[in-house]
């Protein structure tokens, strides 16, 4: 039998971005023996690419901000399809998670009175994003990385302490293994450096693997984003929710071709940048949808005044949520008003002095200068939509992040529900911290609960995982995995992209089924040591499975909402708002089921104006709501109970579950 390195931990965290590191830190702080498994080197995960900031209602710049406003903005951004409880926990806990980073050594940009500075972003009513120039993700990951090292130093100094935190860099997990009664028992994978197999035996596994963007041709995502956690969860028996919702960031680079898709941060617009078509028109004024009409400026003059006087003016339409802006750019290009390379213009050069641009947007200045020969202080950028984020993910309990499989947890982009149909910029970094911490704590608690009866990994499951992992070497003269990946990316881009149609989605499913068959026969030459073709061959399996979920859910949802736009069903339909689409695996087949969206408690509904809710809800819901709202007897206690982590977890898991109706 093949040699396998066997390791044993209390908690294993798969993924070493913001969510994974925060989860691992928390598990270790709970005294658990914790492993973090990173697909890349330690500190290189995709979080590093986040630019704009982390949204948290600290109220440092505008004291009117608070968690309730943040909650409202998040729900609006997600077109009211978010799991209300996740959005609530996120809004309440984000400030504490940001402040905590300062105790780890983070150095955010400051306000004049020395607090953490906050910047404007799409969909956020107040300046809310804690940031460091336009490299906030780097600060976040470095801070967490250094906190992990600090904890390791503590462990080195106290060899007798219970907990520990070990980092396994360049190690890819290919399978979650369950015990005989269906509990998580461990995770199996390989080390890139040696090609050797490794088995992590652990009762609690936290998925923090990020997203799926590498299934698309034009994407801001790095190579790691192959939907590993989504696929691992499915194969372990968990389900995914909201997979039809994929965020296309409105501003990716479009030229030169080799950099197409690389992100241009939303901060460019938050700090005053404007979108122009080939006629020089600020076209976003033409694309403000009815649901947002009252909150956005109608003239350029009002929009420009807003930067200095936000209390008396409405915000510029360039700062609409991302789905709106991406669709608008798409429509302008389609109408023949695009830029020479098929995008639109994003201009800061006429909006602020060169030296301010270089200070506030240093990475963008650098990126365009080096990669496109464009000086953004002197000329506009060309930008267009790029696949950026998947709202869908593992279906979890909001309070504990637990999936339906005992011992499996998920946090960050790989988890679903928090962002509904569309994520607001800045809500990802705070999501990672809030739910990363909750996942680490819940995984630790779960370990304590099973410590007397630890699950054992069946040897047959290990043998099967080995066989699957070695299959590409066993096939002779099969297909090249790179060619297959390129075909997959083209299919997803062309047929399951920003604008979708039933016939194209059906065609995509046929193509994906073909690719799935062909992927079983890819072959790889060379050895197991750092062999990228082998890595890709194994990743392809995950990419194909997750792509199928996206396409199937997209075909099923017959409306347009957030990150899901149907040409054949262009309107938002209140009846569909009440439905979550849930993907699971039966044998080899992806099954999509309808499930009612958990209902928001009336205390939270009261935060919104009834006129606004009218735009999203069915007549039936509104009737119930109107009668509820008149019953003043309903207390606020449910909302307040969630304010504290400890109280919230035990107290409100029940209502979370009730609403989820799993």
């Amino acid at each position, binding site marked *: 039998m093949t040699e396998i390195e066997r390791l044993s931990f209390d908690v294993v965290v798969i993924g070493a971005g913001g969510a994974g590191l925060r989860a691992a830190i928390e598990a270790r702080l709970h005294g658990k023996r914790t492993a973090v498994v990173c697909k890349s080197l330690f500190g290189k995960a995709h979080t*590093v690419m986040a630019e704009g900031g982390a949204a948290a209602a600290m109220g440092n710049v505008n004291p009117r901000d608070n968690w309730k406003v943040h909650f409202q903005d998040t729900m609006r951004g997600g077109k009211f399809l978010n799991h209300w409880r996740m959005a609530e926990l996120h809004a309440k806990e984000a400030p504490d998670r940001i402040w905590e980073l300062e105790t780890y050594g983070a150095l955010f*940009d*400051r306000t004049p009175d020395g607090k953490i500075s906050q910047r404007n972003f799409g969909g956020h009513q107040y300046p809310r994003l804690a940031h460091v120039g336009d490299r906030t993700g780097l600060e976040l990951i470095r801070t967490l990385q250094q906190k992990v090292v600090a904890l390791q*130093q503590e462990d080195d100094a106290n060899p007798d302490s219970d907990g520990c935190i070990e980092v396994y860099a360049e190690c890819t997990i290919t399978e979650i293994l369950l015990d005989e009664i269906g509990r998580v028992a461990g995770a199996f994978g390989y080390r890139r450096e040696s090609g050797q197999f490794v088995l992590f035996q652990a009762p609690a596994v936290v998925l923090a693997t990020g997203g799926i963007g590498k299934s698309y041709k034009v994407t801001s995502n790095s190579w790691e984003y192959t939907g590993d956690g989504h696929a691992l969860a499915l194969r372990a028996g968990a389900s995914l929710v909201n997979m039809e919702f994929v965020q296309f960031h409105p501003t990716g680079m479009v030229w030169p071709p080799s950099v197409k898709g690389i992100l241009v941060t939303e901060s460019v617009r938050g700090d005053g940048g404007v979108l122009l078509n080939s006629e020089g028109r600020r076209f976003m004024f033409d694309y403000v949808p009815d649901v947002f009409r009252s909150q956005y400026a109608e003239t350029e003059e009002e929009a420009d005044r807003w930067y200095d006087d936000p209390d008396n003016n409405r915000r510029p339409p360039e700062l609409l949520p991302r789905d709106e802006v991406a669709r608008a750019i798409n429509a302008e290009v389609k109408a023949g008003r695009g830029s020479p390379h098929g995008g639109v213009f994003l201009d800061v050069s006429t909006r602020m002095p060169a030296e301010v641009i270089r200070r506030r947007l240093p*990475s963008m200045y650098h990126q365009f200068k080096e990669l496109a020969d464009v000086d953004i202080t002197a000329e506009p950028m060309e930008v267009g939509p790029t696949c950026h984020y998947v709202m869908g993910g593992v279906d979890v309990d909001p309070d504990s992040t637990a999936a339906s499989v005992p011992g499996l947890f998920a946090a960050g982009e790989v988890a679903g529900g928090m962002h509904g149909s569309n994520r607001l910029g800045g809500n990802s970094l705070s999501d990672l911290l809030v739910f990363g911490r909750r996942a680490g704590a819940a995984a630790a608690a779960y370990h304590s609960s099973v410590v007397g009866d630890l699950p054992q990994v069946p040897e047959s499951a290990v043998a099967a995982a080995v066989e699957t992992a070695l299959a590409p070497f066993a096939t002779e003269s099969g297909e090249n995995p790179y060619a297959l990946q390129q075909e997959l990316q083209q299919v997803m881009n062309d047929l399951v992209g920003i604008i979708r149609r039933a016939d194209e989605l059906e065609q995509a499913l046929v193509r994906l089924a073909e690719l799935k068959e062909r992927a079983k026969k890819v072959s790889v030459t060379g050895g197991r040591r*750092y062999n*990228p073709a082998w890595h890709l061959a194994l990743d392809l399996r995950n990419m194909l499975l997750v792509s199928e979920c996206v396409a199937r859910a997209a075909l099923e949802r017959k409306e347009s909402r957030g990150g899901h736009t149907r040409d054949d069903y262009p309107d938002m339909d209140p009846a569909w708002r009440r439905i979550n689409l849930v993907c699971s695996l039966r044998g080899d087949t992806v099954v999509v089921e309808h499930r009612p969206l958990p209902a928001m408690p009336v205390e939270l509904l009261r935060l919104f104006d009834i006129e606004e809710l009218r735009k999203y809800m069915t007549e039936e819901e509104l009737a119930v709501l109107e009668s509820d709202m008149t019953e003043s007897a309903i207390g606020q206690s449910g909302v307040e109970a969630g304010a504290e982590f400890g109280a919230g977890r035990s107290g409100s898991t029940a209502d979370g579950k009730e609403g989820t109706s799993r």
Partner: protein
Amino acid sequence: MSTMRDFRIWRGDETGGALVDYQVEVNEGEVVLDVIHRLQATQAPDLAVRWNCKAGKCGSCSAEINGKPRLMCMTRMSVFAPDETVTVTPLRTFPVIRDLVTDVSYNYEKARQIPAFAPPPDLRPGEYRMMQVDVERSQEFRKCIECFLCQNTCHVTRDHEENKRVFAGPRLFIRAAELDMHPLDTRKDRKEFAQAEQGLGYCNITKCCTEVCPEHIKITDNGIIPMKERVVDRRYDPLVWLGSKIFRRRS
């Protein structure tokens, strides 16, 4: 517009290897990493290369291109003459794993030896107050993407494996400087630590590290020299020396 270009890439592992010639298509606007990827997809599927973001933000794709330490994703093909052969080799200072991938664990081991940020015990989360002007010095060093090009180019370790034991290198000097300049860090011995434990004294400020930094951090001028100067202030200033002796005797 595409052309065929000549590439020479080091292929091999710790037992040895050689430069291998390839002819490969190159298109307008491409960077070296694009060409490496095309080679993988067409001619050399198992060509080992480390990369992540392809946007100059993660610092994974460091290599030596025509002898210069650079990020492959930020090196545009247009910087080479049309008939110039592009030679790509792994970072020389670190042991080769395979092809262009090296074992950079030395850097992580050195990072683990630096005492962590020591937060002020009397401040709770949310109570930290720092002025922008005071955090900017440390923020410059926190731009570091840990590409380790500075570590690779530093002549103290580049051809002197024996120095790795006692020398932490420029990346870790600016980590020390960053903590030293952090307005709220409570440790007061960061400079002394850099001198005694990190081998700061081995650096003779030739600025090679600064030259290769893709983030344009002024490693030598803003990080290493201030650390050295203040170490000198404390260790060799006769008045400080006398004061410390008197103080010690009295106590």
